[in-house]
């Protein structure tokens, strides 16, 4: 639709016309703000915890666990230098504390959602699948944070009030 609109504007005499082809789906998926009745506050991205721990594939699991002990988190995301999510280290690996690298201990390719995912739908998904949280990444795979069921339910109640 936007290519036709751009051409139409040119035919109406506008000389500097640009077409953002990927549109607002791309914008929202990148975690950028949207306005409107279903704007950013109703989306997952507005309610994520961004301080979720991360580590590199070549980090030692024991070192990662020590950092987690200090932070109080029970999960850690293995990311590359661009913060693209490669895997997730969960409770079992943390409990085992084997002498391995993070990339050996991680569960590769965890399911993720985009920041623009509707909060209501994500609450229902976590409840249905008995998940306590969902990792949120941009459309190019970079970690935004973690959406917890507790936070999402609380935010949903707030939006309903």
């Amino acid at each position, binding site marked *: *639709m*936007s*290519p*036709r*609109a*751009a*051409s*139409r*504007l*040119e035919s*109406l*005499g*506008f*000389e*500097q*016309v*640009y*077409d*953002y*082809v*990927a*549109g*607002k*789906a*791309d*914008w*929202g998926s*990148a975690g*950028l*703000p*949207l*306005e*409107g*009745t*279903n*704007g950013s506050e109703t989306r997952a991205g507005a309610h994520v915890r961004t301080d979720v721990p991360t580590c590199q594939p070549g980090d030692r699991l024991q070192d990662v666990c020590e950092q987690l002990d200090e932070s109080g988190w029970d999960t850690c995301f293995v990311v590359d230098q661009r913060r693209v999510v490669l895997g997730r280290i969960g409770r079992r690996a943390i409990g085992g504390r084997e002498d391995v690298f993070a990339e050996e201990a991680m569960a590769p390719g965890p399911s993720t959602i985009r920041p623009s995912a509707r909060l209501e739908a994500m609450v229902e998904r976590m409840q249905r699948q008995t998940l306590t949280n969902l990792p949120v990444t941009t459309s190019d795979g970079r970690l935004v944070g973690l959406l917890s069921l507790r936070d999402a339910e609380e935010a949903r109640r707030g939006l309903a009030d």
Partner: protein
Amino acid sequence: MPTPIAREMVQQLIGEGAQLVEVLPEAEFEDEHLPGAINIPLKQLDRERVQDLERGRPVIVYCYDSQ
């Protein structure tokens, strides 16, 4: 010929004063839109409606996605 651009360029042009136009129907615009965008649905894109736009500034049009 209109120039296709990606998100980074959109952000840059907005910073330089570009005008954002969502061309989806009004209900979809009301649902969600980029900050600062105005709504001119494609079916209403005529000489009268574009009077809301400044001709000397760049105009970025967008819809939902590339489909």
